[in-house]
């Protein structure tokens, strides 16, 4: 697949359809891949990579890259879940579509080095894909991990292998994946007592260091100036000086992206403390689906998201009190 992408990128660069290629660049090890812009066939040849560790969602970079004056079109490779983020950004007029050539690429799930480490494997020097397994070379000998065990949580509960918005597809178009496991964890939390839920989230959110990685990586958090960085907003915070501020930041962030979050899972991927932030966003997605009808952000470039629309017969907020209290 990597070679196919490279070849297509070279072709489009050569034809002058695009002037730059947004893709993934090799790192020191197998897993530390960096998003990068390639401007020539040589750069592509040397550094371009596409393998099971290219989890980074490239769509957000397009806000900047597609608005660079006089730079022409940029080619971007979008995995299915990235394409939803791209669709949502187009819908919100955040990306100049005319400057983007989006190529949809298939994805069989992306691995997470920390999942491998969690199996007690450390000193990882290199990782090779061997059939159903990863062969991991380490300072302390070789180890074997099944690919499935190394997949990121978001890939185990993938919502779709089908692309939302793109100009061209490489490989076969996939299909939607039934939502049978995506909301299991949310449902498990919902079934807890309020006290248990409170303890759970305290335990998770108390680790927050407010590094803003979740926000800065999030394609829905594309604000020119975030309320949390804007002293005039009255809620700006630079550190979680109190547990309240941890709650405030994460509630408001989830609320601001509610109806816009495509569940790409980048927030949880980048969290240095491994806080399952996607469970907050997924809660909103689950509620929206249940209360206002199934909705998938980013699927379409037009229409209104559920937070900026309504029906006269919507449920009352008291539904929250009634739920789970049969």
């Amino acid at each position: 697949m990597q070679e196919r992408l490279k070849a297509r990128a070279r072709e489009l660069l050569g034809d002058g359809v695009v002037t730059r290629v947004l893709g993934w660049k090799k790192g020191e090890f197998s897993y530390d891949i960096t998003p990068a812009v390639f401007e020539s066939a040589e750069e592509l040849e040397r550094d371009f990579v596409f393998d099971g560790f290219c989890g980074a969602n490239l769509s957000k970079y397009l806000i900047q890259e597609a608005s660079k004056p006089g730079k022409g079109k940029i080619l971007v490779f979008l995995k299915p879940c990235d394409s939803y983020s791209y669709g949502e950004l187009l819908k919100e007029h955040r990306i100049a579509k005319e400057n983007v050539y989006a190529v949809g690429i298939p994805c069989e799930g992306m691995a997470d080095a920390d999942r491998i480490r969690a199996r007690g494997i450390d000193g990882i020097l290199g990782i090779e894909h061997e059939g159903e397994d990863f062969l991991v070379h380490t300072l302390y000998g070789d180890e074997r991990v099944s690919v499935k065990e190394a997949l990121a949580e978001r890939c185990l509960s993938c919502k779709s292998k089908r692309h939302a918005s793109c100009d061209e597809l490489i490989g076969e178009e996939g299909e939607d994946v039934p939502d049978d496991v995506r909301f299991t964890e949310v449902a498990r939390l919902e079934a807890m007592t309020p006290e248990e839920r409170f303890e759970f989230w305290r335990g998770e959110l108390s680790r927050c260091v407010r590094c803003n990685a979740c926000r800065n990586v999030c394609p829905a958090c594309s604000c020119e100036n975030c309320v949390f960085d804007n002293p005039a907003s009255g809620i700006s915070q630079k550190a979680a000086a109190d547990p309240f501020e941890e709650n405030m930041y994460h509630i408001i962030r989830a609320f601001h992206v509610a109806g816009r979050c495509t569940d790409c899972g980048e927030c949880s991927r980048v969290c240095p403390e491994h806080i399952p932030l996607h469970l907050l966003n997924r809660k909103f997605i689950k509620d929206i689906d249940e209360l206002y009808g199934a909705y998938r952000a980013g699927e379409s470039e037009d229409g209104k998201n559920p937070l900026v629309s309504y029906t006269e017969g919507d449920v009352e907020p008291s539904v929250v009190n009634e739920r789970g209290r049969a």
Partner: protein
Amino acid sequence: MQVNEEFVPTIVAFCCNWCSYAGADLSGTNRLPYPANVKIIRVPCSCRVNPTFILRAFQRGADGVIICGCHPGDCHYTTGNYYTRRRMTLLFSMLDYLGIERARTRVEWVSAAEGQKFAETMRSFVKDVTALGPNRRLEDLRCRKD
């Protein structure tokens, strides 16, 4: 001041100018009492209430926050309360998900004619919040009263 150490919750009520604030005025005009710990903030429409205001109130020591607006369909601005309804439903659900007590937040639709309902709503809300005790899960320790 009161001698007994009974818990008196701090309640913030956001009322839309056209219906609920007028309804609150009407309960005054009709001398229908409700507890004095309810303090009303006038907003043009319930849809002006940003979730951050609600969290801010809890941060600063509120024990309950209630939002009152025109009945759905009667909004002075036609559609404002429909958005309020969705936003607050989702916000309350999220607070519940984080383990915050459900009864600390409420939305009620009170028309300008419903002075009685306003007073009753406030009485029942204060009762519910009093039963929960002080807000400890969504407070800012720095703001706790000594």
